[in-house]
């Protein structure tokens, strides 16, 4: 009886063992791969792909949180394209992009190029440039806002009056407000770009420079003929990375214009702030979803341009 029982108990286990053992190494690997990927796939489907599809669907409805979404075709898009505020916002978003990206990248490259040759206090100077990257935009937005205040509070106007120059309205002016909001955004991102440029510069083999010097090339020629071409992958990465950042600007604008978000007179309002207000202040979820589809399209175009430029290079 005893051995029989033992044998009985063994059989199913042995069978399953044999089944697992019979699988080839490749099949076993595949089984493990899918076990490891099960939870991540559920996450990416449930928290990324499904919501994306849902955003597209909602953009075709009149959903407003209260009643069930009703299909209205392209009405939201028609409404958006007929809305002058949308075009103002569209223009602002591109202003952030076409001012922010070139200014910050030229500055960052210039600083990194010089910083790369500096040995004395290199780490300390690098840290000074990098520190703003670690700050919270929600907090620093308020610091900059205070800087921009009129006298007697604002430090910048204080400095201007000390120099004997005229006072500036900054955030209260419809023309100066957007650049005034852009400055802290550039300020906060510059350190990251400098560090990436520094890494890119270090990756260029010294032998190239030595060969160029032996050939008698000047500093300017070396920069133009060796440094910049070899730095292209880094530059393309930073152009796309910071373009996407400027197209999605929100934290600075929201915190620097809280009493009239995106003001004065929508002069600083970017697309993301418009989306936020449409969705979570007026609860026009369907309309807001249509705006997010536009943002998605713009970002997609920027990414595709990157892919195209990178392919051309290799």
């Amino acid at each position: 009886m005893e051995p029989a029982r033992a044998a009985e108990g063994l059989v199913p286990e042995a069978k399953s063992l044999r089944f697992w053992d019979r699988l080839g190494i490749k099949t076993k690997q595949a089984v493990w791969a899918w076990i490891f990927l099960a939870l991540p796939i559920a996450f990416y489907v449930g928290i990324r792909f499904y919501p994306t599809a849902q955003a597209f669907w909602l953009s075709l409805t009149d959903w407003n949180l209260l009643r069930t979404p009703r299909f209205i075709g392209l009405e939201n898009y028609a409404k958006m394209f007929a809305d002058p505020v949308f075009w103002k916002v569209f223009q602002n978003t591109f202003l952030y992009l076409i001012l922010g990206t070139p200014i910050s990248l030229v500055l960052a490259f210039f600083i990194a190029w010089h910083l790369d040759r500096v040995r004395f206090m290199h780490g300390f100077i690098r840290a000074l440039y990098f520190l703003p990257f670690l700050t919270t935009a929600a907090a620093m937005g308020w610091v900059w806002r205070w800087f921009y205040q009129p006298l007697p509070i604002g430090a910048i106007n204080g400095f201007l009056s000390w120099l004997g120059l005229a006072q500036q309205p900054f955030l209260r002016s419809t023309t100066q407000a957007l650049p005034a909001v852009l400055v802290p955004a550039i300020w906060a991102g510059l350190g990251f770009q400098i560090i990436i440029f520094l890494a890119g510069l270090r990756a260029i083999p010294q032998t190239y420079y030595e060969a160029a010097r032996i050939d008698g090339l000047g500093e300017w020629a070396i920069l133009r003929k060796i440094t910049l071409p070899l730095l292209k992958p880094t530059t393309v990465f930073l152009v796309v990375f910071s373009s996407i950042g400027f197209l999605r600007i929100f934290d600075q604008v929201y915190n620097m214009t809280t009493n009239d978000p995106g003001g004065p007179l929508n002069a600083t309002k970017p697309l993301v702030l418009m989306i936020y207000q449409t969705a979570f202040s007026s609860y026009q979820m369907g309309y807001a979803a249509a705006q997010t589809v536009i943002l998605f399209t713009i970002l997609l175009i920027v990414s595709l341009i990157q892919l195209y430029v990178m392919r051309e290079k290799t």
Partner: protein
Amino acid sequence: MSAGLEASGRLIRPGRILAWTLLFIGGLIMATPLLYMFSTSLKTSGQVYDLRLIPADPTLKNYVEVLKDGRFLRWFLNSMLIATAVTLSNLIFDSLVGYTLAKFRFRGRALVFIAILSTLMIPTEMLVIPWYLMSSQFGWLDSYWGIMFPGMMSAFGAFLMKQFFETVPDDFLEAARVDGLSEFAIWWRIAMPMVAPALSALAIFSFLGNWTAFFWPLIVTTSRDLYTLPVGISSFSAESSIRWEMIMTGAALGTIPTLILFLLLQRYIVRGVMLAGLKG
């Protein structure tokens, strides 16, 4: 450094001095907002109009007042908890995905990789409305989980980790397999320690990103007690709109933790940013 550079370095040229001076001044300008923030946080409301950088009569009164209120501490702890939990989740799951995609051969691998990578193109702003709907259906609004769930895994992290796991030699993993280690143990005990620099880079990015995150926490939280530090600072500042010294104190309290972290881990942070930027 090459001999050529050292030779030219010995000869101190005026151009070099000028470049160094300009870089230094530029660095000071970069630090000015932070310096003024700390300076003003040490002033009384009467001294705010005095624009001198060094306060005439520095006081910690503002800090005492802000911290006594208790809300800041709560927001600080919320942010700490959320950023830590999300970072741990990213370290585990992003590396699991990266490892599997780098080291396993199976049908559908390329498809999974491309699918995950393609989510990088989807902006958060597009997802917040469906996330909000999802959160309200599942009762996640105004909860820690509601703030955390969208960031539990990241395609950027998975991609970064895949790049690094590809540099781990297969022989090590095979040897462990022959020794009878389970696949799970091979990943956790053999492969993970070999990509420690990448893990620290990912940890820094993930923590910093979640510590400063503003958009989604602003949307998903409504009760003060659940605010993260950035959302808390923003609402606190909007309410005390005239009291600049208090606003600067709040902003300083939000900045001090990352500054301390930076001073302690400067080398790792800079290296991590470089690693992630070049590989990512």
